[in-house]
């Protein structure tokens, strides 16, 4: 499964970048979302995969009796997910605001001010 997930990571990153290179701002955002997910899975993968064993001590135990999934990447991803949500939410609203002020969500039409001198 590691190989499959590695492949998935690659796909997430590729697709994310590909989407970011489109003309539409919505696709740009979706691309960023995919990138974020890709990074999360990559971190997840880095902890090593442990099938079906959450890092939670059993109800009647006081210590782990079995193998458990590495909790650190999970905690990191949780943080990353939430942060990425915050950024995405803001970006979505920004998109709306950009559309409201410029009347376009075409990224190619947002190139005027860079060309000023």
């Amino acid at each position, binding site marked *: 499964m590691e190989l499959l997930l590695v492949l998935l990571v690659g796909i997430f990153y590729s697709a994310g970048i590909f989407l970011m290179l489109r003309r539409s701002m919505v696709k740009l955002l979706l691309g960023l979302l995919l990138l974020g997910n890709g990074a999360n899975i990559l971190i997840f993968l880095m902890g090593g995969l442990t099938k079906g064993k959450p890092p*939670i001590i059993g109800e009647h135990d006081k210590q782990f009796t079995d193998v458990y999934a590495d909790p650190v990447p999970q905690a990191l991803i949780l943080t990353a997910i939430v942060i990425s949500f915050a950024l995405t*939410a803001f970006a979505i*609203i920004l998109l709306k605001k950009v559309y409201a002020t410029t009347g376009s969500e075409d990224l190619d039409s947002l190139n005027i001010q860079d060309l000023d001198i």
Partner: protein
Amino acid sequence: MQKQNKPKEPNPKTDMIILKTATNYLIPLLLMFSVFILLRGHYLSGGGFVGGLIASIAFILHSLAHSTEETLKFFKFPPKTLIPTGISISVLSGFLPVLFGKPFLTVLWIKTPIAIIGSVGTALFFDLGVFLIVIGVTLTIIFTIQEHV
């Protein structure tokens, strides 16, 4: 395929009764569930974040079924104020150990466990703060957008 005529604008009020009624029953369930998820995060999966998300989803559902104004009636203060409140609770629970000469965010425990919740420590208040922040944040975002759609 038969081509349909343009239908007249539906009356949303009558159509929404299904969602509204269902929502009225779901909201207490969701809120209770969110508290449940919050409280036992230390032992089982869950915690302030997910709890907060579920609680806010309850309100979002309500706002989708009714309207934002209707949902806002649940709150005496706008949900925005939950944010500083939540931050304050989190920070205070982190700051409490400083008064006892311990590093910031050190978890202090009440000696005897309390029923249902189990051991109570500053971590719980910390998580509660997070819970409130998440609710405040999510609702602020969604409601603001809904007002501006």
